[in-house]
């Protein structure tokens, strides 16, 4: 699992080869091994999830990919170049785990500042700034200092700055942290859109549902070592079970089908009504409330 498949058709966007990161104390003595012998690769168009509990090395791995930390051993390459290379950073967007923006800049100034660092010309800067403010829903707060923003708004403007250069590789560290369910869904939709545009996304999170919904491949880290890696479906699918979902079956028909399955398989089949997840239910309620739908409260309302 740790060695690369040299026969892969497209060159990897991000390549970590036997990377180890050791944090040292003032006297250069090893203090913590944050990442140990990690080898992963991320290919173009993938949404790659880095999973793991707190302190498992997710953020360290991301910082190493960005050149914010230097690997103690091993090799990190991004777009075929060493991590932190100026040429590759021009194609990368990064959302850190917390808002590290300048508190005294307004949202618009923030986006303009980062756009300037990418060398975008004035017209393009203006256009991208307005597009992204609209995308993250901050047009109304465009002229407010970022220091006055709530956590969710800070995440939104942080996400906007990560996309200001229309990057080919987007690295998102806990992108949904601090966002309300609507914001979470928007971010997940955005990630899917980015992937559909052929962009590569690396996503770090410990919210498993988020990762499951958007990632095509995942790696699970624990104590700095890689414990599992592969496609989400491939890792999660239980090939010993088969589920049928049939619309509008009356109870009598369901009973006959269950009896037939029992007879055919020799074991008791599980028969129930599928339920939507809480996120979908919440979004539906909020959407209907936003549209001014009147009627009974949603409690207990059945949904197809």
């Amino acid at each position, binding site marked *: 699992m740790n060695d690369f498949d040299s026969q892969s058709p497209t060159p990897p966007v991000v390549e970590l080869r036997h990377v180890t990161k050791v*944090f040292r104390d003032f006297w250069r003595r090893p203090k913590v091994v944050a990442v140990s012998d990690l080898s992963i690769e991320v290919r173009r168009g993938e949404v790659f999830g880095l999973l793991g509990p707190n302190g498992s090395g997710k953020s360290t791995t991301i*910082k190493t990919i*960005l*050149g*914010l*930390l*230097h690997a103690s051993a091993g090799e990190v390459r991004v777009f075929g170049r060493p991590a932190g290379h*100026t*040429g590759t*950073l*021009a194609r*990368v967007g*990064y959302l*850190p785990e*917390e808002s*590290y*923006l*300048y508190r*005294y*800049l307004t949202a618009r100034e923030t986006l303009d*500042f*980062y756009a*300037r*660092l*990418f*060398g975008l010309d004035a017209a393009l800067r203006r256009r991208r700034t307005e597009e992204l403010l609209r995308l993250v829903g901050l047009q109304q707060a465009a002229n407010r200092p970022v220091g006055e923003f709530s956590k969710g708004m800070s995440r939104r403007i942080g996400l906007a*700055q990560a996309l200001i250069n229309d990057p080919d590789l987007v690295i998102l560290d806990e992108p949904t942290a601090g966002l309300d369910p609507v914001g979470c869904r928007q971010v997940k939709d955005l990630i899917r859109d980015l992937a559909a545009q052929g962009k590569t996304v690396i996503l770090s999170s410990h919210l498993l549902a988020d990762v499951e919904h958007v990632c095509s491949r995942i790696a699970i880290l624990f104590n700095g070592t890689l414990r599992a890696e592969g496609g989400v479906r491939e890792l999660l699918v239980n090939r010993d079970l088969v589920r049928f979902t049939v619309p509008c079956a009356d109870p009598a028909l369901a009973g006959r089908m269950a009896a037939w399955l029992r007879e055919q398989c020799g074991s008791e089949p599980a028969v129930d009504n599928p339920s939507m997840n809480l996120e979908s239910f919440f979004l539906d309620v909020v959407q209907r409330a936003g549209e001014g739908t009147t009627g009974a409260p949603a409690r207990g309302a059945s949904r197809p």
Partner: protein
Amino acid sequence: MKRACSQLFCVAALTVRSALRLRLFVCLLFLLLCILFGVPALVRGDGTALSRARILLSYTLWLSSFALGIGVLWTSCAAVAAEIEGRQMRLVAVKPVRGWTLWLGKWLGIMALAAVLLALIGVVVTARIALLLRDPALDEADRASIRNEILVVARCLEPRAEDITAELDLQVREIVDRGSLPDGIAERDIRDAVRRQVLARRAAVAPGETRVWVFDLPRGASAGGPAFLQYRMASSRGGAGRVAGTWRFGKALAATSAGLPVEHTGMQLRRMHIPEGAIGAADGVVSAAFSNEEAPRSLTAVFHGPDAIELRLPCGAFGPNMARALLVVLFLLGSLAALGLTMSTLFSFPVATFAAFGVAAMIALSRGAAADPGSGGHAHGEELSAASNALVHAGETLAGALGAAARPVARIDPLGRVAAGVRVNESDVAIALALSGLAWPGLLGAAGAWRLARREIGAA
């Protein structure tokens, strides 16, 4: 290149914006205004208009520039280190920005702020002197004294160095030939002692003696007003003794010609206007002679020290001289900003601040020690261990190197010159620009940019 310039401007603008919005600029402005208006109110001198003007040009100008220097050093220490600790630098470091662009952009931003505040200092000081001149309470004599003693710019000429080699050789040979010296004394030490003795002897004018100083006029120099001789004379009895003598200038050096009689007590700086005709001689030389006219065996006149005597030729106007002096100060601030920025790329904010102020203090002190070699250094440390000796030697070497690096600009002393009415030459400004404005910031910037490019920004 276009992108680099855009990034440079962007980082510089952000630095200025942060100083404005975080109210650092306002705080510095308030502090400077307190000094600019508070010091003249607190320090009154002898109460005369001349004294008030002197206080504005000396204490006030110096203190406000010093406060600005502290502000610049502190701001530059915060510019990078605080951003790394506040983690804003993480988002900047993952953009395609090179280390030198970040460093230079920060430096330019700090310099822009310093330039504005320094210009404000210059404008306020100049305006206050101009207002003082218009004070209806002043009489014409007060105004004239401010115009002639404060708002003047003069070129200072030191007397031609006398060749004492022959006398030195002779005396050293006599001492060595006498053979009465203890063992282990090097001839170099004897020579130094004899040199000091000869110079001290030449600084003295005994009763009945006449001493002549020769000043070489620069090519094309002409007095733009009344030239004068500035000197500091004491008697052999110290400050209390009174010495009477006569000054003669130019072609009228002969003792028989009419001179300018003087009678001095104390060691204050004195000025003697030089008669017209003594300046601008065709041979480009001005001579000044002092005859001690005390009775034999009475008091000797002593002209001792680096500023014992100098010729001042008025040239230029006060405003441009002030501007040149402030430009030199700005370049010095450039070095301070570079020092702070580079320290902040190496260390955390508190450590960077401590280190930057330490290095700045070491440079200031080593410059003083270098000016007075007898006072500095350890007494060769016979009683110290070898390790301590090596440490002391390393410290002295470092301090000496820093002092030597700072000396070419430090000796310009722009604020001292403005206060003393001495011209700050264009060549001085050029030296300050080359060394303090470009070379030292360049070296420090290279080190800072190198470190910034290699530092683990994400570890903070």
